[in-house]
């Protein structure tokens, strides 16, 4: 009985699919590339995470050894995990809020200014030179702006090694990351705030909405819900899979692993030590971490009204 039911459903699905074959034709070119260059490598990585593999020799199956090693013995991974959580918990929500705020602010301006402001806010992401500038500002010798300024004020006598001191590394990386938070999520939110029809604001004003804050809560946020969820996903991937600030500023590896993130740990094992099995296991752990945070944040956004 059950088998028959299953068969019928399969037949029904096949018929629906065939009747709408044009939809599948539309999807085909993308899906072929997607499966070949994304899905297949991901599956292969998951399989490799249960092996010991150095690229040159054939992978050796080791079952859960990589994961055991990662969680029980790898002390550096514990540091990386802790840093990543701190880094993501601060830069994630704060950067998300900043992007939304900026996107909303910009939308209030006249079209020409809007374009200009969007460009100015997005420029740190285009230029990619932000790191260089920050490493000059916080340079470890007395030619660095911060050091020379503090020395002239008489607060310090000797230049501080900003990116060589444990206590400064993570906070500085977080500040720089926040500076760069107007990335792809910001652009998505820009499109979102721009897509809210001004007529709604007019209607709301008549219905008794008094100030901008109420406008945002009752109109802007609900109207751009899909964009908010898109931006949240981008924010999460951007924060957890981001090693740029850490590597460029604190070096790789950073002093006492103070700026070590899961991503840098992953790069360490994949490109430098070439322990691909172990690196794959790290990437799977990161994957699971990101998926769970994503589930949580989407649920949270739905509650807020998005």
């Amino acid at each position, binding site marked *: 009985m059950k088998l028959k039911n299953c068969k019928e459903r399969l037949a029904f699905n096949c018929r629906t699919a065939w009747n709408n074959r044009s939809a599948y034709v539309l999807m085909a070119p993308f899906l072929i590339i997607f499966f070949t260059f994304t899905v297949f490598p991901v599956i292969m990585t998951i399989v490799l995470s249960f092996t010991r593999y150095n690229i040159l020799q054939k992978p050796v199956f080791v079952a859960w050894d990589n994961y055991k090693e990662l969680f029980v013995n790898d002390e550096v991974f514990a540091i990386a995990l802790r840093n990543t959580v701190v880094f993501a918990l601060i830069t994630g929500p704060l950067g998300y809020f900043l992007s939304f705020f900026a996107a909303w602010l910009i939308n209030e301006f006249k079209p020409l200014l809007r374009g200009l402001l969007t460009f100015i806010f997005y420029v740190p992401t285009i230029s990619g030179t932000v790191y260089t*500038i920050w490493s000059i500002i916080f340079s470890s010798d007395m030619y660095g702006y911060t050091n020379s300024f503090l020395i002239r004020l008489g607060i310090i006598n000797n230049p501080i090694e900003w990116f060589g001191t444990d206590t400064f590394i993570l906070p500085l990386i977080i500040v720089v990351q926040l500076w760069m938070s107007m990335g792809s999520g910001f652009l998505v939110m820009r499109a979102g705030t721009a897509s809210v029809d001004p007529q709604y604001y007019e209607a709301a*004003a008549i219905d008794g909405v008094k100030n901008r804050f109420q406008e945002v809560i009752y109109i802007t946020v609900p109207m751009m819900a899909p964009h908010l969820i898109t931006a949240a996903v981008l924010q999460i991937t951007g924060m957890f899979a981001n090693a740029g600030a850490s590597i460029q500023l604190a070096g790789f590896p950073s002093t006492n692993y103070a700026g070590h993130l899961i991503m840098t740990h992953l790069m360490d094992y994949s490109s430098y030590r070439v322990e691909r099995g172990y690196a794959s296991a790290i990437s799977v752990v990161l994957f699971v971490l990101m998926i769970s945070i*994503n589930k949580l944040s989407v649920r949270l956004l739905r509650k807020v009204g998005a």
Partner: protein
Amino acid sequence: MACEAGIRKLKKPRKKVRLIGNEAQIGRKSSGDVLMLLIVGIMAAFSFFPLLMAINMAIKPINELFYYPPRLFTAHPTLDNFKMLFSLMQNTRVSFLRYAFNTVFISLAVTLGHVFIASMAAYPLAKLKLPGIKTINTMIVFSLMFVSAVTDVANYLTISWLGWLDTYFASIIPPMGATLGLFIMRNYMTTIPDSLLEAARMDGCSNYRIYWQIVMPLSKPVWLTVAILVFQQVWGVDNSGYVYRESLKTLPYAMRQITTGAIVRMGASQAVGVAMMIIPALFFIVNQTKIINTMATSGMRE
């Protein structure tokens, strides 16, 4: 539609002129305008500072890099760094123009290709309830969460099996299947009213026509945004992992070769940073003006 536009025209003269904000938002105070201008000013200054510094570093003569106390802005602006960069570029084995051509060609090909095929896939994924669609959507969100640092071996094997090593295909085809752009477009397209598509279907429109004549015009802001993201990402990619012939390599590779050097090359490497961002910045500006125009003209809502 025509009627609505007429009404708008009628209304226009009566609206009061405001510095910022939309005329429609009648419940607003001017004090709020001032506060917002102030906040935007501060935020804009913070955002613009790194670029300003980057340009400043690029036109700084090399000896000024070691002044004490360091000056915020250079005293003797010079184009020496750019001149040095050009002279270094002339000494490359493969002509510099070839690297530039490769980068422009690959960036444009990937951007056009991706926007086209991903938007084609995004429409059914966002709007149609068919077998398999839900699974694919989940896979796409999951794929965004998987970092690409460890997938290169698999991709290398695939590319070499296809015989694409050392060809343009290796630099163009794989990035076209990136899911970021697709994901953004798919989510945007869910906001297109169903009734509109339903009406088109009633009139006998095929999925292809709905895609090309309804979905694409309505989602212009999003595919322009995706074009920026993809272009900028591909622009910075060093493709030397899958390509070995010097004549197929890209600018980021060439620039890295040129600027990897001791302190003497420091000025040149600052100039590279500025030079490399000119094209993406222009692309962004042109693109943004298009987005704004779209927003002003598309009054289509449910």
